């Protein structure tokens, strides 16, 4: 691969190009922010109704007690693997092409975790009692159940959020120190506080590079454990088609898969919206497309392995769920999922001539839809077809759940747009002209 164009650009131009989006804002940008905010407000109103009237306003009912909220929870936590995992892997392997990609990915992680972490609280019903999940000495002598995977989730996500925020913050420090030099007063003050008085001395650079390497190692271990723990929310119960030993790696690979799709989509939009065509080149999209294709194949393999063993075992309660997914009530979702997660990426990204930035974006949208459906297909049919088949039931989401789900997507857009206005979306200090590293 030849050296990419930006490496030939003077540093002053790179800095100007990457800092410019922070100070300029088009009317289209603000219209998008306010439109997304309106959807967020609608979602918050729906949540307000749920808090006031109780969980009866949702479609949750016996036997399906987990619906959209748990689907959204697993989906967003999965997407969050975009950043930290991809960024950490590429950083540890010293892949030079990662440089314009990592910060966008790390920001996705932090925002997705913030959004995903809200769902267990929304799902609680009595959200104001969420602190009962936290183990603290209390006069009732009651402790949360430490053996419950739901408590494991809480601890795992708290660890992951903490690590991801620090992992995003550390490489931002040198850029913020530069931004503190020339800006409007309030921004100068903000960047000066956040950059902690960074001067660019070799002691600071050494400490930063060491910390980033260590954090990359730690965050990888945490990211894998987080989605494994999320999968155990299901696998630790003996419900049909949940009690599976491959659920951990199945969920982790699915999370990375959806994460790469989200990253590709975000990068494609940012490239267009912020005029970063020189920095986010076809090379980056091509590499990420290949990763997406690889994960698509891995996802298909895991899905096939999971369904094949269930079908071969022919255990009645498992087969009831299997049938509802393959040819029953949930079959349309299942087959749309297969098309979105496997057929589309396989054709568009597997055939070299078809692999362009546009097809990568189309595949990413399909994968995001497909992975949401996958979470839905995992959660709902199993609960709708419990081992005692006389207790089976159907779940239909209400507008409250749709509104809250839509609000989280809109919330993600708002958070990302605001972030891209406050901080450079590409790490400027990492993106310097270097003679030899492009390959």
């Amino acid at each position, binding site marked *: 691969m030849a050296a990419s164009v930006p490496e030939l650009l003077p540093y002053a131009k790179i800095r100007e190009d990457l800092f410019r989006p922070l100070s300029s804002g088009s009317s289209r940008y603000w219209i998008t922010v306010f439109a997304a905010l309106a959807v967020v407000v609608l979602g918050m109103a729906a949540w307000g109704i749920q808090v006031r009237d109780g969980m009866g306003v949702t479609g949750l009912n016996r036997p399906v007690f987990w619906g959209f909220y748990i689907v959204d929870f697993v989906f967003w936590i999965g997407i969050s693997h975009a950043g930290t995992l991809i960024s950490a892997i590429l950083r540890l392997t010293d892949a030079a092409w990662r440089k314009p990609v990592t910060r966008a990915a790390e920001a996705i992680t932090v925002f997705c975790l913030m959004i995903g972490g809200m769902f267990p609280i929304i799902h609680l019903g009595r959200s104001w009692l969420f602190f009962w999940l936290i183990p603290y000495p209390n006069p009732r002598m009651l402790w949360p159940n430490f053996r419950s995977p739901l408590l494991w989730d809480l*601890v795992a996500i708290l660890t992951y959020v903490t690590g991801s925020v620090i992992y995003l913050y550390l490489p931002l420090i040198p850029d913020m120190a530069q931004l503190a030099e020339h800006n409007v007063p309030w921004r100068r003050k903000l960047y000066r506080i956040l950059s*902690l008085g960074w001067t660019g001395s070799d002691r600071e650079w050494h400490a930063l590079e060491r910390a980033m390497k260590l954090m990359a190692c730690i965050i990888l271990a945490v990211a894998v454990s987080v989605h494994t723990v999320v999968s155990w929310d299901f696998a630790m119960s003996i419900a049909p088609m949940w009690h599976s030993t491959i659920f951990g790696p199945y969920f982790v690979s699915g999370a990375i898969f959806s994460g790469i799709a989200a990253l590709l989509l975000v990068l494609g939009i940012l490239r267009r919206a912020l005029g970063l065509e020189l920095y986010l080149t076809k090379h980056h999209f091509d590499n990420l497309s290949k990763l997406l294709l690889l994960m698509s194949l891995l996802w298909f393999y895991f899905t096939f392995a999971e369904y094949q063993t269930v079908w071969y075992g022919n255990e009645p309660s498992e087969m009831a769920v299997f049938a509802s997914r393959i040819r029953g009530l949930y079959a349309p979702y299942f087959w749309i999922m297969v098309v979105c997660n496997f057929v589309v990426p396989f054709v568009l990204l597997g055939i070299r001539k078809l692999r362009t930035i546009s097809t990568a974006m189309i595949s990413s949208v399909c994968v995001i839809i497909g992975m949401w459906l996958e979470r839905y297909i995992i959660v709902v049919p199993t609960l709708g077809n419990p081992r005692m088949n006389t207790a089976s039931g159907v779940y239909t989401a209400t507008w409250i759940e749709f509104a809250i789900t839509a609000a989280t997507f809109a919330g993600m857009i708002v958070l990302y747009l605001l972030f891209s206005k406050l901080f450079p979306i590409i790490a400027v200090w990492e993106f310097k002209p270097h003679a030899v590293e492009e390959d």
Partner: protein
Amino acid sequence: MYLIADFREQPKLEAAILALKAAGITADDMDVFSEEPVELRRGILDRPSRMSLVSVLGAIATGGLATVGLYAAQQSYRLVTGGMPIFSFWGTGVISYEATMLGAVLATFGWFLWESGLLRKRDKNIPVPTVLPGVMCLRVRCFDPHVTRARQILDSAGATDIARKEVA
């Protein structure tokens, strides 16, 4: 007193540092300022670090504390378990693991702040050079008998600009 010298080429900067060390100025008295990390050759201006060790110790400490906390919490309310253990590492291992990793994350971040000097109170009299793009500034702390010699070394190593800053 401080001398601040600008270099545009890394080999010249490295030669200057080696010559200054040979003249008796220690690595602690020298700092290189740049807009991007400068990878100096091993042995030029090494900065030993204990970050990995601190990270592991932080991990062990919080992991251990979490495990002890879990044990104590589960023993504080004696459930009737029909002979099953009240505390089981299988059941609580995930929490211990995540707490261990959280300890590693926090210890790494804390030690980064300490080792980089960002959180330590700085002497405002010490000059901090303004770094231009593509320039590496070498700041040398030296005292009167060495100043002339240090300046000569910097000059002969190829510094493009040398400034002398007095400490108030």
